[in-house]
């Protein structure tokens, strides 16, 4: 019994140590964002700032066109969430609950696109987007989401497969076409799965750096993720401001995570991906 107790204590110590190590960087970020640059030099390691210097936040916001970046980010997020949810739900339905002979191999193709690294499609996609006149437009990033995404199609298809055939049959009895079944039966039953897709896409777009780097050149169109990188180059030595900006940029993600923790965890463990 005593040995059991000792082992248990050891486990607790190990877990606490690990958790502390994983949490430490975030604590450094938040506490650093509340120090003056003088405090940061004098005492870089202290986690409890002496005197809460909230002024870093307005100062960081003022040094980048925060509202412009934020509204661009939100526009991108809205467009991409609508695009992905719609296009992936359509394809996932076609690949699961519409009975046609092509759906098996087409699903295979969907999965195959997951294995293609972005490097090989990057240049031609850039040429295509430029040819369409979408360079330096938010549509360059939004438009492709209207054309489906393998991970989300996979996730939605798995969910659609669990809808009982009897419910679909009932709809068919009522004379619903596949289109009607999709909107009146499948979509209303799939709100949790659709919410997962919307959430993941929101997070992906919020974090996306490569897209804006590639397609946007006008600072008036930059989203936060890209604008923040510009901020690093310009204010590289003002760590307290950088940390304040990084904290602000992170905060919505942490909030979303805590509000939708279950959705997050389930989404990741069913598909093995992150947003």
């Amino acid at each position: 019994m005593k040995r059991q107790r000792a082992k248990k204590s050891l486990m607790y110590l190990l877990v606490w140590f690990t958790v502390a190590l994983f949490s430490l960087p975030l604590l450094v970020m938040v506490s650093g964002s509340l120090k003056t640059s003088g405090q940061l030099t004098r005492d870089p390691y202290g986690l409890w700032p002496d005197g809460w210097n909230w002024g870093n936040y307005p100062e960081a916001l003022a040094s980048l066109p925060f509202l412009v970046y934020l509204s661009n980010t939100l526009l991108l997020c809205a467009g991409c969430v609508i695009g992905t949810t719609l296009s992936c739900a359509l394809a996932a339905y076609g690949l699961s609950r519409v009975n046609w002979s092509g759906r098996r191999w087409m699903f295979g193709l969907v999965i195959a696109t997951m294995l293609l690294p972005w490097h090989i499609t990057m240049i031609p996609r850039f040429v295509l987007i430029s040819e369409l006149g979408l360079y330096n437009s938010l549509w360059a990033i939004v438009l492709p989401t209207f054309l489906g995404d393998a991970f989300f199609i996979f996730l939605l298809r798995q969910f659609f497969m669990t809808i009982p055939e009897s419910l679909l049959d009932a709809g068919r009895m009522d004379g619903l076409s596949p289109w009607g079944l999709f909107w009146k039966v499948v979509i209303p039953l799939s709100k949790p799965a659709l919410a997962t897709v919307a959430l993941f896409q929101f997070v992906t777009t919020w974090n996306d750096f490569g897209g804006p780097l590639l397609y946007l050149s006008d600072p008036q169109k930059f989203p936060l993720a890209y604008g923040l990188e510009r901020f690093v180059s310009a204010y590289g030595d003002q760590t307290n401001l950088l940390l304040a900006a990084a904290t602000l940029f992170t905060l919505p993600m942490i909030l979303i995570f805590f509000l939708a923790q279950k959705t997050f965890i389930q989404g990741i463990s069913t598909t093995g991906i992150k947003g």
Partner: protein
Amino acid sequence: MSGKRLPPTETAAGWLFCLPWIIGFLALFVWPFFASAWWSFCQYDMVNPPRWVGGSNYGRLASDLVTQQGFGQALTNTLYYSLLSVPLSVILGVLLAVLLSAPLRGQAIYRTLVFLPSVIPVVAASILWLWLLNPESGMVNYLLSWVGVPPQNWLNQARPAISMETMEMIRQGGMVSSFKLFGSKDALVLMSLWGVGNFVVIYLAAISDIPRSLYEAAEMDGASPGRKLLHVTLPMLSPIIFFNLVMGLIRSVQTFTSIYILSEGTGAPAGSLKLISLELFLSAFSDLEMGYASAMALLLFIGLALATLLLFRTSRYWVHYRMVA
């Protein structure tokens, strides 16, 4: 599955529902793939039309490989990073999942805190790690000093450098007050390990799916916790470990945002953070060498496909698929 099947109009409906994806597949995958393959044999700057140059782009890649410039250096960097970060994240991920599935009070909180770093946007995480890895006042060196490790240069140093004097001192068993063991890519590995929570979540889900009866049977046979881990947990997790190895490999090769921000888009110091993804981006969009970059992309794709295939071939020796559904 119900037995009765529906009229052939369903076929039309199937195609129509998949239409957006099919357009995307053709425009964003099929055409780009073949265009890339074609341009890899051309000189192409996006202003003038592509001009056929035969295999000269590949010749350049081959000579880069020999001289360890450009592509050669980027390939070595990528291999270094992937071969270190992927296995380490699998090992750390499994260990953390085992630890966090033990029945401890506050388990949910611990799980949340370990996962939390992976919801931090890469851009913010990179800014944060620039500070954490600061050689003079970063938290990482501070913690290492507690266990007697001298300050490391991290992002300011291309590769580990141990001087002859240090070697001599180590050999004589003397106190070593300065050795630089870790460079920029090790910093990158450290940062990627911080985000291992994703994998942990997947392993946790898999561990909770392992039937209790297997552990009970092992206990009946008097198996120690170590043996249970080795003979029950690991074999049962092996399909997931395999999946994460493949996905981790693909993901690590595609690492881009963090290296771009950590090196301000240059791959500095001394090109040590130039992974293939950054080298390719720079060749294409700052040197406007689309042909050369396309050849690089094609080689990368082939290399990745071969590595994945190799993993699949080895999987039959160590991945246990459950026989009972």
